[in-house]
């Protein structure tokens, strides 16, 4: 099963190398130094976690997609910022504050993901409509709670360290991201949940008659996507020391771009975690490269759009005969 995807994996690895070579040619040493890698490494997790959520939704098939990811991430941060000071004072007990912050953020993500899961799984809404509605709902709640302004956390040592202090040269958010991605990869590959999810995505009718609890599977999938989004929300809050309802609105597109670039089939049933991780890293490096070359943000948006279309085209032209030969 995984041998089919080696082409995609090799392709993504070479894209990464290609971007590095291009960076060396156009920018030189300042791109390759440790500091730049650390700053890129700290930025990948937000995008990567959201992309993993989109990937899970897409694998589950039936037009599965999660458009509410970044909205839920921001909402988790907002809820935690507003709620936690009632329980723990950030000045007196910074560690306890950080811990409760993470706990509240994750619970918000869990609840938000469950809302998506109930709507898609049990109520039977089309994923696009359900997550479109919850995207507006989550964003709206975050706007309503904060009145539309940013909330700053202040300097909370353990949390700030987590976001901005590399440990043995590795940014901790990146380490967390890799750990989470590894867990999801293992779950998808070895657990019965993963096997059933792929079957569900490739043929929902067969899955239903094979006795797979389709509704519960969808519920769990979207709940998991919500939890992933809230981890991203915690990382955003830790890294920027503030939360705002409209942070990273372009992630809705970019996460889909990452997932499509990683070769996840929009129709469901295929997708590999390692490819998503590699493609998120590639996009982050490309984005940094654009920054180094002083290319405007507007052009970057244009490039993301064109890239998305190109990858859709390449999935259509190149890989289909290739896969047929290999299998």
């Amino acid at each position, binding site marked *: 099963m995984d041998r089919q995807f080696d082409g995609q994996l090799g392709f993504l690895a070479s894209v990464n190398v290609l971007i590095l070579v291009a960076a060396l040619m156009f920018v030189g040493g300042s791109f390759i130094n440790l500091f730049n890698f650390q700053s890129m490494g700290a930025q990948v997790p937000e995008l990567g976690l959201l992309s993993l959520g989109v990937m899970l939704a897409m694998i589950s098939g039936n037009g599965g997609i999660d458009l509410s990811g970044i909205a839920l991430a921001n909402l988790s941060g907002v809820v935690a910022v507003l709620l936690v000071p009632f329980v723990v004072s950030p000045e007196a007990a910074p560690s306890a504050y950080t811990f409760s912050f993470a706990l509240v953020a994750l619970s918000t993500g869990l609840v938000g993901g469950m809302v998506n899961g109930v709507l898609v799984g049990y109520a039977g809404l089309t994923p696009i409509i359900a997550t479109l509605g919850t995207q507006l709902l989550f*964003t709206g709640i975050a706007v*309503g709670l904060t009145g539309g302004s940013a909330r700053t956390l202040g300097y909370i040592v353990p949390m700030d360290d987590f976001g901005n202090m590399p440990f043995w040269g590795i940014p901790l958010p990146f380490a967390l991201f890799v750990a989470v991605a590894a867990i999801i990869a293992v779950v998808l590959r070895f657990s019965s949940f993963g096997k059933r999810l792929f079957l569900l995505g490739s043929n929902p009718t067969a899955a239903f008659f094979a006795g797979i609890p389709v509704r519960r599977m969808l519920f769990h999938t979207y709940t998991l996507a919500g939890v992933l989004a809230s981890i991203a929300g915690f990382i955003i809050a830790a890294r920027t020391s503030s939360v705002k309802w409209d942070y990273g*609105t372009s992630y809705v597109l970019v996460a889909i771009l990452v997932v499509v670039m990683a070769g996840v089939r929009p129709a469901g049933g295929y997708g590999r975690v390692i490819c998503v991780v590699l493609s998120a890293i590639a996009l982050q490096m490309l984005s940094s490269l654009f920054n180094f070359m002083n290319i405007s943000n507007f052009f970057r948006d244009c490039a993301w759009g064109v890239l998305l*279309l190109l990858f*859709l085209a390449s999935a259509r032209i190149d890989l289909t005969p290739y896969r047929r030969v290999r299998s």
Partner: protein
Amino acid sequence: MSLSATNEDHAPRAGFASRTAGFFRRYPEAFAALLIVVLCVAVGLLNPAFWQLANLFDILRASVVRGLFALGVLMVLAAGGLDVSFSAIAALVMYAVTKAVTLFAPDMGMLSIFIMSAVGGALLGAINGLLVNTLKAPSLIVTIGTQYAYRGFLLTFIGTALFMNIPPAMDAFGQWSLMSRTAENGFTVQLPGFVLVLAVAALATWAMLRFTLIGRAVYAIGGRPDIAERLGYRVSSVQLFVFAWAGMLAGIAGIIHVSSNRLANPFDLAGIELSVISAVILGGARITGGSGSVLGTLLGVVLITLVNNVLILIGIPSSWQTAILGLFILCAGVFFVLQKRAG
């Protein structure tokens, strides 16, 4: 009202539920109409200042651009697709056309400006249609891509500066008013002439969906693409057509936006996509395609505009609008799913 209540007393409860479900299935527009009535009555009771003609003018004025977008989205949805690039098309067309007219032909007539923007929008929409056909990917993903490509193209290559002195023809068109009324608070509110453009576009879309072969093809392809293809409809040409139609309406909407605001801002109209799609969904169009009506769409647009404009009147702060909009969509989604099951 009282008549139906007495009927209900005699009939068994399940019968009433299934009849209600049947009613809403036959007239999905009624759901939006019901919400509008409930909202208007509630707002009117809490704040009697709501009931005045000036307010109606305001709502109509605010509905025009969103209404044009929504008619385009309705076409695409009915054919089983989804378009989120219309706002970028409108921004690109409005800015490019305004800039070109100002620089090269400042005294061009309004009709030629409209034709230019309609053709430009239709071409961009046709690109969407071609891509959806050739890439065989979900149209949501394709149009997310083109949305960023169009807007990025506009801001990188055409310009980012505000355009204050728009061509005189557009300025005059934006100021053209059918009627004017002085509101209780002393402001004069006008019923702008461009409301007629929405009326014409709605009539044209309605007539096309109702009476022409291509209109039937749109519903057929949205409902069951495989069967439609076997019946001899060419799926690819119909898709090209609906996306081009949506693009054309978006181009016209862009020009109206510039005329009524009297400035061309390339950053405008971003982020309006979700509220437009919500309007169409609230109007009873199914996201899976094959259904939807012009009347329902217009009702949905009015409903969304009401949410945006009148909640302030009853003391709900504007920061909660987005959340309420989201709730409405989810309610509509759940409602339509449940009534499908009940029947």
